[in-house]
């Protein structure tokens, strides 16, 4: 599984980067995104859900969050 580190990237650039990363993976594949606490973890999951992807889970790690997404096709 690919891990995309979006820590230190602010909104909405983190979402756009996540979107670009998801373009490169196949449908049904899962991707992990590392997100900062605060606005990023509040906004990015919701925006990716709005794009139609499947949110599989969210876990707190050391000082950040790990969001697991399954890519849903065009």
């Amino acid at each position, binding site marked *: 599984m690919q891990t995309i580190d979006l820590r230190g990237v602010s909104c909405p650039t983190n979402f756009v980067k996540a979107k670009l990363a998801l373009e490169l993976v196949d449908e049904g594949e899962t991707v992990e995104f590392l997100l900062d606490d605060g606005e990023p*973890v*509040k906004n990015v*999951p*919701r*925006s990716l*859900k*709005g794009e139609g992807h*499947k*949110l*599989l*889970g*969210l876990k*707190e790690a050391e000082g950040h*969050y790990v969001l697991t997404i399954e890519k849903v096709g065009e």
Partner: protein
Amino acid sequence: MADKNKTTSLDLNNLKSGGFIKERGKDLFTVRLRVPGGRMSVERLKKIAEVADKYGKGFVHLSVRQSVELININFSDFDAVVAELGEGEQKVASCGARIRVPVACGGCEYNPNGLVDTQKSALEVDEKLFGTATGHHKFKVGFAGCPFDCPKSAINDVGFQGAIWPELNLDECISCGLCAKSCAEGAIVMGPDKKPVFSPDRCTYCGDCVKVCPTEAWKSVKKGYTVRIGGKWGRHPLVGTLFATFLPEEKVVEFIAEVLAWYKEKAEGLGRIRVGDIIIKEGADSLLAHLRINFPDHVVEKTIPPQVIETQIGK
């Protein structure tokens, strides 16, 4: 004696609805065009640009309540301006003691935060109530699609704020914690069993939990407007206070009409006074009781009068 050839011919009906506003200097007026909810077609925008270019001074002003104002229009050109703007619905906006053009955010069609169709509400109020004389003072209505409240609904005479009521189906919850993380009010926290615990008292009805929930375990079970009444800005600002919750979108016009009826009656003989000051004078219970007759399911049990904002302290 006046030269008859030099007198100006004008259709005074164009002036009656207001929206022609005297500028500094001789003969010049601002023509305020109404744009309910701030949305207009590109075609209309082009037409306005054309007319502004021909009769104005090369710029327009976007008013703080979303109208387009043509600047430096000579009063002798009024009829031509109105005729060239054409298209029946290109009506000028009002000023004076009337119900003004409603303002609104973009609403729920394309804004991810929007919970209700504020654009539809603004158009409906514009169509049914715009220009209604209040007999006392101006009367402003605003629509915000969610509790972010970009349009500052509570500083309108009647301000509407989109709201949803969330409900959790525990069976569908995967314990991801996104709802608790998303809730800005602390109304949702994760319990020891890794399931969300909801505190309704803290909820401001923003719907963030519903929007983020990956499995639709959180669902919206009620939708409508949170209504605050009695706000205004200007020299002596007031912030409107809560009078109704989850008012259905289709009851907005009727609700405003009832507030107006109470205002007209209670302000009788008091001259130029806004509804917020009347609520302070009469007490909030009087308006609550009046509104409860037609909206028993939506009017709150108790509230407080509009709140004074002291903007002169510190001088």
